[in-house]
């Protein structure tokens, strides 16, 4: 277990705003907490809410780094708050909501609506060739291929890649690394009937793979360490070939 220096006082500077409340103005609120061993931002934010700010809004669900609910900007860098130990940060901690997504309030943003929109546009589901016979022995797949698909399937739609993306800031409809990674995932999957022509129709423009400026913020911050850089580059080459 990590052992931070004992007795640190942590100063939290949290960007607060509630668009539901007509009197609310965006401002930075300051809170102090005594740190203890094993403290995560999940623990700290709950303590702040409990002791100082009952109306403070943030999202946690699994609190285990699995569900992707708690993406926020931690000291300027998008990341998952639940698995961030305060001991890995300097004593002054700045927290802000993920940009690009619609703000619900304080640190809570609406990633759900954005992700659903992206999924509908890119049709992020298997386009079955023939319906599966549930009673028959399943189709075979090479073990390595199944593992390669899982590698890309690990995305948790936390939104950190979108928050770290230069294009997403400028282009409202850019599908981002999360969307491109999904296309790479379905492209790899032999169960999906779509071919590169079909994928080109979905991502062969500036809102898709050609909008990426290769700044690669997505790759650097992806909490699941997905190989976004290679996938986007690979897709771009494939899509150029189709065009």
């Amino acid at each position, binding site marked *: 277990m990590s052992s931070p220096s004992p007795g640190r006082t942590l100063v939290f500077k949290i960007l607060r705003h509630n668009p*539901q409340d007509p009197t609310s103005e965006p401002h930075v609120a300051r809170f102090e907490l005594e740190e203890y061993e094993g403290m995560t931002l999940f623990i700290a934010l709950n303590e702040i809410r409990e002791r100082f700010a009952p109306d403070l809004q943030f999202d946690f669900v699994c609190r285990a780094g*699995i569900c992707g609910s708690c993406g926020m900007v931690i000291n300027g860098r998008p990341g998952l708050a639940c698995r961030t130990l305060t001991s890995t940060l300097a004593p002054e901690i700045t927290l802000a909501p993920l940009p690009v997504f619609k703000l619900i309030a304080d640190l809570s943003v609406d990633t*759900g609506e954005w992700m*659903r929109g992206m999924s509908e546009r890119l049709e992020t589901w298997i386009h079955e060739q023939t319906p599966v016979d549930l009673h028959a022995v399943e189709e075979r797949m090479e073990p390595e291929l199944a593992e390669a698909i*899982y590698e890309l399937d690990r995305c948790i739609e936390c939104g950190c890649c979108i928050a770290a993306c230069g294009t997403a800031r400028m282009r409202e409809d850019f599908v981002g690394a999360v969307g491109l990674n999904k296309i790479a995932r379905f492209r790899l999957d032999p169960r999906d009937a779509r071919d590169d022509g079909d994928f080109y129709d979905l991502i062969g423009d500036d809102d898709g793979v050609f909008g990426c400026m290769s700044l690669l913020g997505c790759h650097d911050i992806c909490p699941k360490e997905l190989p976004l850089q290679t996938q986007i580059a690979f897709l771009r080459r494939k899509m150029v070939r189709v065009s």
Partner: protein
Amino acid sequence: MKIVYTDVLVIGGGLAGLRTAVGVKQRGFDTIVLSLVPAKRSHSAAAQGGMQASLGHSAMGAGDNEDVHFEDTVKGSDWGADQRVARMFTHVAPKAVRELAGWGVPWNRVSQGEREAVINAERVVITESAKAHGLITARDFGGTRKWRTCYTSDGTGHAMLFALGDQSIAHGIPVMERMEALALIHEGGRCYGAVVRNLVTGELSAFLARATTIATGGYGRIYKVSTNAVICEGTGTAIALETGVAELGNMEAVQFHPTAIVPAGILTTEGCRGDGGILRDVKGHRFMPDYEREKRELASRDVVSRRMTEHMRKGLAVQSPYGDHLWLDITVLGREHVHKNLREVTDICRYFLGMDPAEDWIPVRPTQHYSMGGIRTDHRGESTTLKGLFACGEAACWDMHGFNRLGGNSVAETVVAGMIVSEFIADFCAGSESDINLSTGLVREFVEREQAGLDGLLNSSNGESASAIRSRMEEIMIEQVGIFRTGSELESAVEELEQLLERSRRLSVRNRVPGANPELVAAYRLPKMLKLALCAALGARQRTESRGAHYREDFPQRNDRDWLNRSITTWPSAEATLPRLDYESIEVGDMELPPGFRGYGTRDHIDHPHSDQRHRQIEQILKAVDPNDRYARQAALMPFEHLLPEKYRPRSQRLEIKT
């Protein structure tokens, strides 16, 4: 007053809810899913190790079939399960895996030839058949005779949930996020929908439906330390209880998972032990073989959790600032295996403990994990007492788990129950019995009652805050309604919880905004959670025997003579402070597998007077049936196929793999 109409209202956007929604949509009905969070963030995503289905394609799963899976499930349940439901489940589980494969779940596959594995802390070589190459493989889990747990690394729930989430989008099913059902709308024993609060705006509306389905998961968060997500507060189960009509079953049956990390309480999958990991004490000694010579670390969860607690009580725990714990050692599996097949575990250890589980031992202890209890339903998933209300997944007591569920059977139940129950819901909606004749005046009454409750909380100024009461409830549950239980502790738990419930009716909040308001949410959920806690505590106090996860130190034997039954709780009235407790007997005469020795510890239980008779009867029946026809033998003992929706009745094919 806003009223939304649909055919099927699904409350809960995890695996069970989504599969139900897809099922009714495929049958041509409209459906709306309500979810506290974006559906793909549901707690289903946290299922790591896999789902059980008897495909039998891996070498160590050879010879597996529905019969073996059924027997494991019933023994695991300590004979508490409804055996017909367990049969329906094991019959459909292989179909569910295959359906999910079609929807894109990248199940790990059999790779032909020799491979190394760790069994009982020793390296062995397993030879996979060339015939099975590329088919879905399985790993070992506790309480199973075959390697039966299908998996994608240790992110199985995630892969399943995303495949189903994407299917629900493909089917155009609206999933309304950040919506919470506060009460069911019902009259004359018929459920018509729910009063729903928008968690962002605070607005209340009524959702009316031919059928309402609750798939909101478990109630783990009534315990202080739980592996469950923070949203698993059992509120879906509670709104069913609060109708005063719907029954809850076996609420005292609460599972503790042996290996959650200390102190965060986050799960490390049973796959750690299934793949060969072992448990060690403060001296580094591997202690499980001392207690369970045959099954060792892979006894069923209730048994392992009890043995660990017993061992820690002997002073053999590791002491830490966060309390006592033991070690989970997966270093024996080797770095490559750990980093590839136990990836989430690796990440969890890295981020929360700052260590690499391929190098060091993981600090673990038993932690609340699963709610076997829930809304009591028939085999169709419909409430036994409230027409038009269905439930499936962890929120339901269907009841395939009885008093202990096997690892890998819950994530399997979510999709299997969703498949089966959605067909029955669709049948119900197709018939005239689902017609709604309801006055909007009644709907208004239900909405206004909820609004008045919320206004009361926002306007009252001298009440208590919810958080102190909630903490005390969580402590009581973990200390007095935990792994080891005694009559006197349970007595005092019930008494104090009752006082807490009374106090929880006089709360106030500091933050008085009607919209998004986490403090208000905590306040209105608290009485609901306390009611569930009381159902569990009272059920445990009255049940003077030990069965599965319910262990009474003062009554250590399983007592089939007096307690072969299901605890049924209902809530008598809004003012009541205790549930009403009844019992539903489980008939030995109908069982395919009559009660017997479960295979742990020593044989020590009180027999049911009809057990012997049923055993003899079964012998007689089987004499007349072809010993090589397992389907005929099963059908002679306990027919169940007619209970299934027709589309799921055909037998599942599997390749016969030679060992």
